[in-house]
């Protein structure tokens, strides 16, 4: 159990006869002792490459990695004291699931009854207790995935790396399993990095989430912070279900201070910003409106309802202002039929502005409110 530090870690693959691939660029990350981190990002953004550098299966092209103050770069995988659940499960085919899971403990010459007890415990946790005596090729891929997860969790390593540990499981099982994994890791004070495509998994499981895109770290923050203060346009468009509305807009000066105008929506969407928001007039920006902070029912703005969808616990509304689409989420049912024009208000904390050129955040309504 220890803290993990990545200092401007870069991975460049140089496949023979083809162009070099930058899989990870200048990744800086500090993971505290006992912290659970999620690596979240779309396919091919460099998540697995990052884990492989930490385990030592891929050389670090630039930068350094340390675990518990010990520099890892030059150590062999066997010396790093990390456990990993692989994306492709990678169970050893000639051994039963039980032996696969117990393998590392048996090697450390742990007492027989302790191994039996631990295997039973972790098998119970991931739900493979009844397939322990079968061979990997005779169980389903979901079961193989759980077996591979069990094999990683059973080890008392300094760091646990879980590469998409639940991608094969159905949503209900996932919800239960991630709660159990979290409890298991937290009870033992284990440091863990969990790779996932799934925001819900990341939010439920992790203390902090590292959002990656195209080999770069976009933001590394708590789930709440990602939602309320996305660092850039990418995070804003990636986080949240549904994600933030992003509209091209311009900063203007109104009677009561700075305001933001969205030309695409005609004059229908003009939002006053607080005096404290120091923004130059004429600045071109992306206006981000989080769907949960568009309060439909009353307010100064008008929009036409295109779709009104009740999901059982919340309502998703597709709105349109002068042809500009907006998504809103309301906690209860909304009494409006498609075609109807409804009033709505934009809560100040739901307003975000991003620089048009660089995409970096320049204003968060939530920060002003706090």
């Amino acid at each position, binding site marked *: 159990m220890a803290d993990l530090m990545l200092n401007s870690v870069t991975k460049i693959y140089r496949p023979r006869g083809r162009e070099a691939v930058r899989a990870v660029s200048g990744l800086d990350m500090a993971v505290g002792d006992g912290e659970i981190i999620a690596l979240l990002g779309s396919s091919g953004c460099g998540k697995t490459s990052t884990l492989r550098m930490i385990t030592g299966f891929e050389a670090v092209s630039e930068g350094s990695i340390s675990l518990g103050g010990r520099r890892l770069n030059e150590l*062999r995988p*066997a010396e790093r004291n990390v456990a*990993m659940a*692989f994306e*492709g499960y990678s169970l050893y085919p000639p051994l039963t699931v039980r032996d696969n899971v117990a393998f590392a403990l048996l*090697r450390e010459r742990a007492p027989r009854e302790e191994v039996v007890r631990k295997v039973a415990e972790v098998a119970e946790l991931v739900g493979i207790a009844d397939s322990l005596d079968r061979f990997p*090729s005779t169980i389903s891929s979901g079961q193989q995935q759980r077996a591979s997860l069990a094999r990683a969790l059973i080890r008392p390593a300094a760091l646990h790396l879980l590469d998409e540990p639940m991608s094969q499981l159905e949503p209900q099982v996932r919800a239960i399993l991630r709660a159990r994994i979290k409890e298991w890791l937290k009870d033992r004070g284990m440091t863990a990095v969990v790779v996932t495509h799934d925001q819900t998994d990341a939010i439920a499981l992790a203390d902090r989430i590292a959002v990656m895109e195209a080999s770069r770290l976009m933001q590394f923050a708590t789930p709440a912070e990602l939602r309320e203060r996305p660092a850039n346009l990418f995070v804003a468009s990636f986080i949240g279900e549904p994600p933030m509305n992003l509209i091209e807009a311009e900063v203007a000066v109104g009677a009561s201070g700075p305001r933001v105008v969205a030309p695409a929506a005609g004059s229908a969407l003009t939002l006053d910003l607080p005096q404290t928001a120091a923004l130059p007039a004429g600045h071109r920006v992306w206006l981000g409106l989080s769907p949960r902070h568009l309060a439909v029912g009353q307010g100064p703005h008008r929009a036409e309802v295109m779709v009104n969808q009740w999901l059982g616990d919340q309502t998703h509304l597709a709105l349109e202002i002068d042809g500009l689409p907006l998504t809103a989420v309301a906690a209860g049912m909304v009494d409006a039929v498609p075609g109807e024009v409804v009033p709505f208000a934009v809560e100040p904390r739901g307003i975000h502005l991003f620089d048009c050129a660089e995409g970096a955040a320049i204003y968060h309504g939530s920060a002003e409110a706090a």
Partner: protein
Amino acid sequence: MQHTSWHWRLFKGICLALISLFFLFPILWVLLMSFQTNEDILRVPPSPFFTPTLDNYRALIAGELTGAGSTLKIAYMKNIWNSFVLSACSVLLSLLLGVPAAYAFARYRFRLGENIAFTLLSFRFAPPLLVLLPLLLYFQDLGLYDTYFGLIWVYQLITLPLILWIVRGYFEDVSPDIEHAYRIDGHSWLRSFLKIAVPLARPGIAAAALLAFIFAWNNFVFALILGSSDVQPVTVGALAFITASGIQYGQIAAGLVLSVIPTFVLALVMQRYLVEGLSLGAVKG
């Protein structure tokens, strides 16, 4: 859909029997010939009825060929032993060199790696006669002429590329992450190679070894030129049957049967490992 009615099974049985007969006929004929005298064999028209004799085998094992009144000393059993020593040692040496090399080619990308692998394969393209004469001169200078060691060395041209390329394919099919999982548990590279990679590729190694053995066993021209009768294998030894006083068909047939037995037994033994791969399954990541 399962056809289990009796005439379907009968039909299948007859077909299988016909096909087997068609392919096995030459071997069967040779087997029959080996129990006949030269006169029986050369009888016109040929007849499957004859009084079996063990004379051919007796002559071979005693090492004395009797044909048309004269006796000829041969060392056929010694030739079979030579074949066995040469083939087995060549295959063992090739496994020792080729399996780790195949692993390296499968797992690691290194400078000129692909070129080296291809060069090794290209040894199989070159006509052996092209290299044999210069090789003969060198071998005589180096004192390798007419030694087991020299021949085993040259046999690497046959066995090494075969083993390297077949086994490499098998290693490539095994997901490297299976070894990785073993290595982060605290095992060294060497142990993961020996304990994980090699056992998983065992069916491939067995198939390659068997093939290489057969190729080595059947080689003729290397040993013909680079050795004397002391080290020559049965392929060369069989030349002795063509004598001045005629061709001894019965003895040739008996010699053939004797020379096939070792490879045949080996194939039966290896069969276990060859089919092992099927039951293992799901190795591919």
